[in-house]
């Protein structure tokens, strides 16, 4: 019972720690709006005169451009906390609803990418560390090095050229085949087929990162005292590697995966744009194209909150994986 309570308190403390983070993000948003050349109301309305004059007047009043800056700031804070992110005239919908609609596909893409990149990263790192400087290790290192230096959008486009245009195996863009009206398992299969290329594209960079990390982590761990102990107990090398070293060596990967969540969201803007994947990344690109800055601000805010939430989850997973971590 003590552990469960401790864990609840730990989660509570992590949530409390997230508050200043959110506050900084909101403040950054507010500063950006006021840094923008021209009137803040123009920015919030989506620029280029797509908003009605009434709405502009309403905005000007609502953001109280005649009021002192701190009042404006507090008002802005109140709106964001109540998840009122404004209205997008370009898309004809409240920003919050737009983002919520697009969250599912992005989470699907990100989830697949995380599983794929961590899975392959750990596997290849394991193989590479198994025999350092063997030909296998060298091949894996070179692949990781090149993947690490490749722009995501370029990988995506080249995969489209090869697998969609030349071989015709996989669709070029979108999430479902609109003309087919699939349902049930057929629909799931269709989505999966559309998911393959975007997920591989987004995974490549992170896979490279995790391979390098896993390799050095494995090598570091295998020199530890507990490995010597396990060996002198007469355990087989296999058991040592899989039962002891692998577990400990995976911990830095979990930490790194948590750190990379924000970057992953950034990467999904590029990947979703390349593959027409209907998530918040593509929404961000469309907002960019239409100069709908308020929508862009809303996406940034929601994405940042998402990162904070995922990081709390990662901490909880970490504490489950490694009982030595005191739930501070």
């Amino acid at each position, binding site marked *: 019972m003590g552990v469960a309570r401790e864990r609840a308190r730990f989660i509570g403390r992590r949530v409390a720690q997230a508050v*200043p*983070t959110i506050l*900084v*993000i909101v403040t*950054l948003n507010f500063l*950006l*709006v006021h*840094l*923008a*050349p021209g009137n803040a109301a123009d*920015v919030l309305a989506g620029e280029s005169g797509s908003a009605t004059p009434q709405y502009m007047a309403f905005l000007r009043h609502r953001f109280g451009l005649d009021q002192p800056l701190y009042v404006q700031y507090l008002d802005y804070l109140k709106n964001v906390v109540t998840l009122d992110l404004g209205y997008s005239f370009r898309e004809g919908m409240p920003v919050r609803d737009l983002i919520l609609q697009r969250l599912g596909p992005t989470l699907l893409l990100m989830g697949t990418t995380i599983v794929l990149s961590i899975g392959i990263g750990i596997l290849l790192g394991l193989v590479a560390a198994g025999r350092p400087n063997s030909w296998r290790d060298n091949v894996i290192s070179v692949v990781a*090095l*090149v993947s*690490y*230096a*490749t*722009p*995501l*959008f*370029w990988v995506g*486009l*080249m995969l*489209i*050229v090869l697998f969609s*245009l030349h071989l015709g195996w996989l669709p070029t863009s979108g999430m479902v085949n609109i003309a087919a009206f699939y349902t049930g398992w057929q629909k799931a299969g269709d989505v999966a087929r559309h998911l393959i290329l975007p997920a591989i594209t987004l995974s490549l960079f992170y896979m490279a990162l995790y391979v*390098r990390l896993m390799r*050095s982590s494995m090598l570091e761990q295998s020199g530890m005292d507990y490995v010597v102990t396990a060996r002198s107990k007469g355990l087989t090398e296999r058991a040592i590697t899989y039962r002891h070293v692998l577990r400990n060596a995976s911990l830095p990967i979990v930490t790194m995966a948590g*750190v990379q*969540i*924000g*970057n992953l*969201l*950034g*990467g999904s*803007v*590029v990947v979703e*744009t*390349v593959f027409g994947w209907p998530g918040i990344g593509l929404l*961000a*690109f469309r907002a*960019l*194209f239409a*100069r709908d*800055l308020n929508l*862009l*601000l809303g*996406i*940034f805010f929601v*994405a*940042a909150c998402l*990162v*904070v939430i995922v*990081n709390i989850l990662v901490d909880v997973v970490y504490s489950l994986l490694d009982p030595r971590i005191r739930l501070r």
Partner: protein
Amino acid sequence: MKRTDALEFCRRFARNRASLSGLLILIAIVVVAIVGPLVHQASPFELAGQPFLPPSDQYLLGTDMLGRNELIGIIYGARTSLVIGIVATLFATLVGVLMGGAAGYYGGVIDEILMRLTEIFQTIPTFLFAILVVAILSPSIGSVILAIAIVSWPPMARLVRGEFQALRNREFVQACISMGMSDLRVITLHILPNCLSSIIVTGSLLVATAILTESALSFLGLSDPNVMSWGFMVGAARDFLQRAWWLCAIPGVAILVTVLAINLVGDGLNDALNPRLRHL
């Protein structure tokens, strides 16, 4: 650095063949970026011939969908990538050294606050933030450099903080402080020179990341409209993938080779400057 030290450094760097080839490639790219625009004075946006010409003797890499010379674009793009990568990294390094230095040297509350801030900047979706900054300030060389600098200083700050913390407790620094030397003198004369090598290694890797970020921004259309860049070239040719895939492929290879070369040089510098450190 004494002459023997410099020699030793060169010998260590040259021992790593991958880093040496990375350095040679990088030098070639720098020469092209400097000399190319001097030899060919025209604008890279100038129409040179028929659109979609395949690579030939006259147009070494062909022409793009508007009939611009692809090779000229690549040459000017090299300059853009390197300038933005280096200048953004210099700014990020400045901010990182100031933040990390203050946190590591003074510790206590200052350390607490600065490191929380660094942590927050590390968790926010940095690329989305860079997009926002460029979109709101409208795309230009300046706004792109600012956006990249804002999102890349945290790793530098963390590194510098760690180094400063370690050095501050060393005897020679303690001696300087107890002799009544001012903080500024201690930091600039005694601490900073001792962590310069780590700053250089991290900085070199930041340049590579900055070039990747710049290419992704310009791919999305967030680049200075008067400056040619590799990401912009890929983004513009994207709609013609079926007809002329090489127009996307070539600038991408340029980015890949440049970033790879810088990463190799960075690894080599790391091995040569910090022989005891295996990785960052």
